[in-house]
């Protein structure tokens, strides 16, 4: 029996020993081997956490994009276009300056063109140097090239006050023929020298190849300068100006004394090619400036030089997000108000680069006397002298009635540096209603076309 029970007891003992050993292990190791499946929750929790992080990142990027959508970022274009406009302004100023100040060096047309180019290149180089530095401050690279092309024209006119005659003193002449493009035609006319009525007044004509003529008269009627236009179709119109003693007429802009003058709109309808002619040039004095494109010929204006009508430059602009290259054709600035740059044209280039002083006129006396007893006819006697540094070519004596109408003109030709004048307007008929202050104007021209003038008033009662 002991054999039967003995194994059972032995197993009991062995079980107890085993359990005791497991208890010992259990107390020695705090994590029981069977509890390691708890990591499932840990791992799953971690995975859940990661997915929430991913969600946050996605939502964050969505927020960022929404933010991006509300940003309007046009700055790179604005800067590039602003630079382009700066270049246009800068180069336009440089061309205008070169045209105005570098037109007298060298007598040959080609030499003058070279001088103009050199001056313009120098100006643009200097401008570019400053612009590059300025752009570099903002982290940009911006350059403008020297001109790669030019459009040439002719600039002519007179920049000292004198009659609108040519350099030979001729009052009927043609400043330019075969004109196809006119960029600028401005004149400033002295009211006191103008004729008193449209008849025989200063006239500017534009005649096309088939003989159609637009005609512009300038005269002074009762203290108003009238600009009268009639075209070949028979329509006519006029604009007046009473301000100051000079009237500025801009044919290209269509203004008289800065105010719009619809009568001048004929310039818009100019034919493809026309001649510009002046008649009665001695019935107006002042300054004028004319810039024309290709012409068949030019007359003897006090100055006629080549001028840059446009220059082509290339610009290159680079910012972090934009690279922009452009070719610009730049026309010169409009130089503001026309004004005399010398009295009597002392700085007028006379063709060979030297300058010339206008003649000096002095009226010693002007008087009137009755020519018959109890009659209404008067003689006007004018005495004076003219001197010049070269030769006095001609002298013009004009008599105006109290309301500004021209009564008579006398011309005398000379070839001496000092001349005396003694002229008489015979038998001028003066009724009682015509009494008042009569005006005598003496204008002298030298051989270079410069002029000088003097006035004298005579009271007739």
């Amino acid at each position: 029996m002991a054999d039967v029970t003995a194994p059972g007891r032995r197993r009991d003992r062995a079980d107890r020993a085993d359990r005791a050993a497991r208890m010992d292990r259990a107390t020695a190791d705090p994590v029981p081997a069977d509890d390691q499946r708890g990591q499932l929750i840990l791992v799953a929790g971690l995975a859940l956490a990661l997915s929430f992080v991913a969600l946050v990142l996605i939502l964050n990027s969505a927020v960022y994009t929404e933010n991006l959508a509300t940003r309007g970022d046009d700055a790179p274009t604005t800067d590039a276009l602003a630079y382009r406009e700066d270049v246009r302004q800068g180069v336009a100023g440089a061309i205008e300056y070169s045209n105005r100040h570098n037109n007298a060096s060298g007598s040959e047309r080609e030499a003058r063109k070279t001088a103009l180019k050199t001056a313009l290149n120098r100006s643009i180089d200097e401008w570019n140097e400053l612009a590059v530095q300025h752009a570099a401050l903002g982290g940009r690279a911006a350059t403008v090239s020297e001109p790669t092309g030019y459009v040439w024209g002719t600039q002519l006119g007179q920049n000292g006050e004198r009659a609108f005659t040519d350099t030979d003193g001729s009052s009927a002449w043609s400043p330019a023929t075969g004109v196809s493009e006119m960029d600028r035609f401005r004149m400033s006319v002295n009211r006191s020298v103008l004729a008193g009525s449209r008849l025989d007044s200063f006239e500017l004509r534009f005649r096309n190849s088939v003989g159609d003529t637009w005609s512009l008269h300038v005269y002074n009627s009762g203290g108003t300068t009238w600009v009268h236009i009639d075209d070949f179709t028979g329509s006519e119109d006029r604009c007046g100006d009473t301000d100051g003693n000079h009237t500025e007429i801009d044919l290209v802009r269509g203004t008289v004394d800065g105010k719009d003058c619809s009568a001048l709109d004929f310039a818009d309808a100019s034919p493809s090619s026309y001649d510009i002619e002046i008649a009665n040039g001695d019935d107006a004095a002042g300054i004028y400036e004319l810039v024309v494109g290709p012409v068949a010929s030019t007359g003897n204006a006090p100055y006629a030089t080549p001028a840059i009508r446009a220059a082509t430059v290339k610009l290159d602009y680079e910012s972090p997000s934009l690279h922009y290259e452009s070719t610009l054709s730049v026309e010169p600035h409009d130089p503001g108000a026309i004004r005399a740059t010398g009295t009597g044209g002392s700085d007028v280039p006379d063709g060979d680069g030297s300058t010339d002083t206008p003649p000096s006129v002095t009226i010693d006396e002007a008087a009137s006397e009755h020519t018959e007893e109890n009659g209404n006819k008067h003689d006007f006697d004018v005495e004076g002298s003219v001197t010049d540094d070269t030769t006095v070519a001609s002298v013009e004596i004009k008599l105006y009635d109290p309301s500004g109408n021209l009564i008579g003109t006398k011309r005398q030709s000379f070839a001496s540096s000092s001349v005396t004048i003694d002229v008489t307007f015979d038998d001028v008929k003066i009724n009682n209603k015509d009494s008042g202050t009569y005006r005598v104007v003496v204008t002298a021209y030298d051989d270079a076309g410069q002029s000088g003038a003097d006035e004298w008033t005579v009271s007739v009662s």
Partner: protein
Amino acid sequence: MSPIDPVDRVLDRAFGHDDRAVSTTVSYALNLSVATILMTSLLVASAGFVDDQRERAIRTELPVLGGQLADDVSTADRLANTPGTDSVVITSDLPQEVAGRTYEITVRGGTDPHLLLSTTDPTVVVGVNLTLLEGSPASIPAGETSLSGGTVEIEYDGSTGILEITENTDG
């Protein structure tokens, strides 16, 4: 008297008629399975939610990026339209990814130019019209080009009038 199972008899002998350990084991197993089911369903739900949100985010972002690119193309077109323009290069700095996914930009030229921005996984395709100025010298040649999202260059060549969108090769 019910017959006694020999195994029970052995167990009775081994544990000395102790049943309490059985309930611990069952509750442990139940705990574990409930936790597993909970975690699995949470994970599945959150993954689905994240994917859903990702798709919605992509759907919001692609039109914005397309709009930005179209804006830059318009800018290039406006510059091209200013007289005398020889060349324009605009660098459009777009992100490489939207909501953690890379995307592709397809440019379709011709008479009705537009952009298609697309992602795969999730599959989202968004179209954006390109508007060029009327009478502009610039034109996008007909045909289709694809590029991967990221920094893009818009190039206009004044001599040919072609406006081209390319990948930025400088990185």
